[in-house]
């Protein structure tokens, strides 16, 4: 009788332990913002070689920090700056933890966005941000690999073209593996919370 009681208690404790273990140790989507897609274990991400204003940059070179990858183009005066402002605000919210985060903007418009232009653009928002461009072929490769659709849209009136592109933001861990996918429009606060969770804060 006593034995059965003990077993019952043990089972109850086990159930509680299951929940506690999974909730506490697993980085389940639950601990991230509801709109975030969290990947545990991290997912492999393709390497790339692009150009910054100060030379070639590969994914390997960027390892060691949490990478926040954003695709856009400098011609766009509305949504891209809004996202950049939000990312700047995110790093501000992170305080000293921001040192472990690197925001990288990759152009989807390599024809107009030279590496130097990318540097000038991102530094308007935050001096630590990195802007990358490259040959059309290299940009197409990285966008394809990161699931970023982009297409140049010509205008009938001959005005300057625009570029339609996937608006999501990708987060890679310090080992260069994909860990989070953020849809467009995440608030800076939510991104900061996600990054803190990711960095074990």
């Amino acid at each position, binding site marked *: 009788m006593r034995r059965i009681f003990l077993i019952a208690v043990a089972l109850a404790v086990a159930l509680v332990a299951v929940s506690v273990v999974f909730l506490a140790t697993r980085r389940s989507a639950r601990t991230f913002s509801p709109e975030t897609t969290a990947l545990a274990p991290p997912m492999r991400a393709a390497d790339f070689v692009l150009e910054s204003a100060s030379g070639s940059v590969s994914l390997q070179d960027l390892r060691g920090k949490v990478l926040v990858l954003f695709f856009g183009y400098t011609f766009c005066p509305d949504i*891209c700056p809004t996202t950049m402002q939000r990312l700047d605000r995110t790093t501000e919210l992170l305080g000293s933890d921001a040192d472990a985060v690197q925001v990288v903007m990759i152009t989807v418009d390599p024809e107009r966005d030279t590496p130097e232009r990318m540097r000038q653009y991102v530094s308007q928002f935050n001096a630590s941000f990195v802007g990358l461009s490259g040959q059309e072929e290299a940009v197409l490769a990285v966008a394809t690999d990161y699931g970023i659709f982009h297409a140049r849209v010509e205008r009938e009136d001959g005005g300057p073209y625009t570029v339609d592109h996937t608006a999501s933001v990708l987060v890679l861990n310090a080992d260069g593996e994909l860990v989070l996918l953020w849809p467009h429009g995440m608030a800076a606060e939510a991104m900061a919370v996600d990054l803190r969770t990711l960095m074990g804060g």
Partner: protein
Amino acid sequence: MAPSICGPKLMLALGVVAGAVGCERSAPTPDVAVRDAWARAVAVPDTASGPGWNSAVYLELLNEGRADDRLVGASTRVARSTEIHESRVEDGVMRMRPVGGVAVPAGGHVALEPGGLHIMLIGVTRSLAAGDTIDVTLTFATSPPLRIPVPVQQR
């Protein structure tokens, strides 16, 4: 037939005439005002070459008049050209397209705000820093052009 219905008919006729005369004196007109205008700060490097740098003007248009109107264009001396654009994120894709104009219905208001309608400044000729003010002239389908000061903001 019956003279008794003459009265109302006459009244109606008089009313219509009075209305028509009234209309002629003051046709319903739009009356457009601007609220909360701001321009996005942009740094134009000294060494700038190539496609130039762009910015955007946001504002709210209110039409307190009795006729619809339409914002059809804008101009400013600080940009090579100016167009009305609409940005949208649709099914996860960021898009931006020029639009012919923005309807400002009678008694209504319309907001040009980040992530939506905006006046795109193409080829900004100098850096626009927070605290600056630029002059922008808005042109409408009906109302006379409106020249407004627009503060530059970093946000």
